[in-house]
């Protein structure tokens, strides 16, 4: 979706509901190097609010989060 940004890890969160998407994202981000980028897709619309909230709490950056029909796709950069 953003060819200029290099993605280090992709995650499929489709069909998962709160609080599991946040758990999987936090686990995946642990394995990323600082500055690394995670790309994920989800179907839970709650993710639209929850991933930015999680990123603010943990000090990481949401590069992009958007809805594509039933899918929510987001890019997250690990900052610490």
């Amino acid at each position, binding site marked *: 979706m953003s060819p200029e940004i290099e993605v280090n890890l992709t995650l499929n969160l489709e069909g998962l*509901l709160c*609080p599991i998407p946040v758990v999987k994202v936090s*686990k995946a981000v642990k394995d990323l190097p600082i500055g690394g980028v995670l790309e994920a897709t989800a179907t839970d619309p709650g993710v639209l609010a929850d991933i930015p909230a999680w990123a603010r709490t943990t000090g990481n950056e949401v590069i992009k989060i958007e809805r594509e029909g039933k899918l929510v796709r987001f890019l997250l950069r690990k900052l610490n």
Partner: protein
Amino acid sequence: MENSVDGVTIIMFSGDMDKVMAAFNIAIGAAASGKETNMFFTFWGLKAIQKGNLTGKSFFGRMMGLMNRGGISRIGPSRFNFWGIGRWMFNQMMKNHKITPLAELRQTAIDLGVKLLPCQMSMEVMEIRKEDFIDEVQPACGVATMLEMAYRSKATLFI
């Protein structure tokens, strides 16, 4: 005492399935955001960390163990339980909507480092021994320990 640790403390007083589910959800969210998360289980809440065997020593204690039997798969919702029919219905609905079952939610919390602490006083009153709890439960403690956790936390919830 260490200063604020930016954590979350949850006092689990209720043993109702819906409230236990909400509490584990919150604990998981906090732990996944890197917060030190402690859950203090007291009174009916103890049921959520029991293995589910019969408990009690005295007559009243055994009556309590029988009528208020613990175990996370045995607890019912706070409303519409109807002697277990409501619990069954809720579990079916949760399955249909692919919601994580309660026992799995508890395990996720444990895996994320959420500490589960039982209240010693409630254990004495209800005649529940530490052997009646799942293995991951921490040693029993009292109000001073719970308050110390609360003072150190930025959020404390009584559920």
